[in-house]
């Protein structure tokens, strides 16, 4: 209905393969980005920062990471929580070990370390497939969390076993520690999300992305056209873990400020991120964002409505929330196994064809 495509023709492969091939989409996207970057920070308070935006950005980042592995490369992973822990602990060690290091660098290195660990735990994917692999990735989840519990060096021998994020800055702006400004952490995380979403988009639209999808759709055929399964799977594990590690570092250092492995990086984290990409849409960056928004915002909404407005006791609200999330997952899987993004595509398709039905 809104699209006016006539006359919007492509004269180069560059314009034909753009992320937003439709003019209207492109314009809307940049308007949204401009609002997010230049308007929202002025109206931000701590509640919106800590309860909504930071978790959304960070989980979206993790979801994009997992989507690269699961949605694009077809390797199901239940180890996201563990990899987030690696990112978090790596950033903690870097922050305390090299206090002068800029936070951006800290987080990127933490991502790199996680990528390494990811490759290590991804190695079995060469021999193990499907559910076996999914279960095998749980090994990383349990092992890593155990490791950060038992290996005292990782938490600098603190008595509580907790890690706390000290004050560090990014280009002179404080982004971690107790004295951060909401706009600073907001923009810091938004920047990471934007950057990494862009990188993910670049990767999946090119040669390497196609090699992942080829492995996902038909590994035998992928091999005969020259895709080395080792390289494809390991690169997916590495890049996915890199994303997840960055998300884990931000999760601990910027959002929570303190963490303890058993709670903060439990298997529930792994499941939550997996839910995000399934509900949002496998093999779609937009789907990762939608899924993250859904899983992050739904509980907030519930809490506000059930406890805040209806005055239902907290525990009952919590149980109802669990039931509702579970039921919604089942509902979406039944109604649209390809995720909310599939609804979005259908809607867009209909709008483009409007008033015609096909």
């Amino acid at each position, binding site marked *: 209905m809104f699209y006016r495509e006539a006359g919007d023709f492509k004269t180069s492969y560059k314009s034909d393969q753009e992320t937003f091939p439709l003019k209207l989409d492109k314009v809307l996207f940049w308007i949204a980005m401009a609002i997010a970057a230049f308007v929202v920070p002025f109206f931000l308070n701590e509640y919106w920062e800590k309860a909504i935006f930071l978790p959304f950005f960070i989980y979206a980042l993790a979801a994009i990471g997992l989507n690269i592995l699961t949605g694009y490369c077809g390797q199901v992973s239940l180890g996201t929580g563990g990899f987030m822990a690696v990112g978090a602990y790596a950033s903690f060690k870097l922050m305390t070990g090299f206090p002068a290091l800029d936070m951006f660098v800290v987080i990127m290195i933490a991502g790199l370390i996680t990528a390494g660990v990811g490759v290590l735990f991804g190695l079995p994917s060469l021999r193990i497939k499907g559910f076996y692999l999914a279960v095998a990735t749980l090994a990383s989840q349990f092992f890593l969390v155990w490791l950060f519990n038992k290996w005292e060096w990782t938490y600098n021998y603190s008595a509580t076993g907790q890690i706390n994020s000290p004050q560090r800055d990014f280009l002179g702006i404080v982004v971690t520690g107790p004295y951060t400004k909401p706009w600073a952490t907001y923009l810091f995380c938004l920047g990471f999300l934007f950057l990494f979403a862009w990188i993910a988009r670049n990767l999946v639209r090119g040669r390497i992305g196609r090699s992942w999808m080829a492995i996902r759709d038909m590994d035998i055929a992928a091999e005969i056209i020259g895709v080395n399964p080792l390289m494809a799977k390991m690169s997916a594990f590495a890049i996915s873990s890199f994303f997840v590690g960055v998300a884990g570092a931000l999760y601990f250092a910027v959002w929570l400020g303190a963490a303890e492995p058993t709670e903060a990086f439990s298997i529930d984290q792994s499941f939550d991120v997996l*839910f995000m990409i399934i509900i949002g849409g496998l093999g779609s960056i937009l789907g990762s964002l939608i899924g993250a928004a859904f899983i992050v915002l739904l509980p907030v909404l519930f809490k506000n409505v059930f406890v805040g407005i209806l005055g239902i006791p907290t525990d009952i609200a919590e149980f109802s929330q669990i039931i509702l999330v579970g039921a919604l997952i089942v509902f979406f899987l039944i109604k649209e196994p390809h995720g909310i993004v599939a609804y979005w595509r259908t809607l867009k398709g209909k709008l483009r064809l409007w008033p015609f039905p096909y």
Partner: protein
Amino acid sequence: MFFLLDPFFYEIVISGLLAGVMYALVALGFVLIFKASGIFNFAQGVLALFAALTLVGFQTGQIPFAHLLSVFGFHVSHWGSGFPTIIALLFSLLVMIGLAWLIVQIVLKPLVNQEGIILFMATIGLAYVLEGVGDLMWGANVKELNVGLPEGPSEFILDTTDMFIDKLEISAAVVAIILVTVLTLFSAYTKMGRALRAVADDHQAALSVGISLETIWWIVWSVSGIVALVAGVMWGAKSGVQFSLSLIALKALPVLMLGGFTSIPGAIIGGLIIGLGEKLFEFYIGPMIGGATENWFAYMLALIFLLFRPQGLFGEKIIERV
């Protein structure tokens, strides 16, 4: 071979094997459903929790959703002193069968012919729902479960061999062994059992046996509900009924990897290997690396095993057809 002389060694072996039987029992629930419907049922652990909660509820005469009712002004908690254990067990059994029917109707039927990963995710969603419903119905507090099984160290064994073995574990093992035997026989020798196995390979073939897919699913989900009930009872008796009971599912997963998702003997042997392995590892290696290795050892063991034998314990070598 000095450790063979260590009396603790035997104690650990036995308690490891006994724990292994319990793992096998939970794993069996997975295998049954996977074989019959190709569904990797992540809700198996929550089913056990739900079953145990229900049993306790019946035993103690709790009113379901009492807490929820209080929101609307009805302050009730118990309607009496509860049922005798055997009746409570029976009722719980019926609840599990009813639940199985609901699951098949609401969740599985609409998802027929979907990919495995989708069904897997659906069972995770199901696990959430069951967990929430269980808590809402019976409350989230830790509950004691007593079904009259003997407890405490077995004096007989303590006296004769000097080993410290809990009677509860022995009885649990005995129950588990009986159940495993029954299920194996059921699956191998009854018409229904064969139909169940057929359906995993070919839905059409199962239909030609004359049983509808729906019925088959209901039966397997009921059976695994019963298995969950037993597992829940055993586990609950040992450490109380609480949320962590649902995590026994996570214990069964490495067993499945080791034994294969479709193999009943695999589940049994795998369970024993893992039970034994993790106890020994924890006892001998654990102290050196900080302990609490049970959380991950089973997974690492299964993982390393699979690297060398991707088809699992009893699987056949996979030849890829092009």
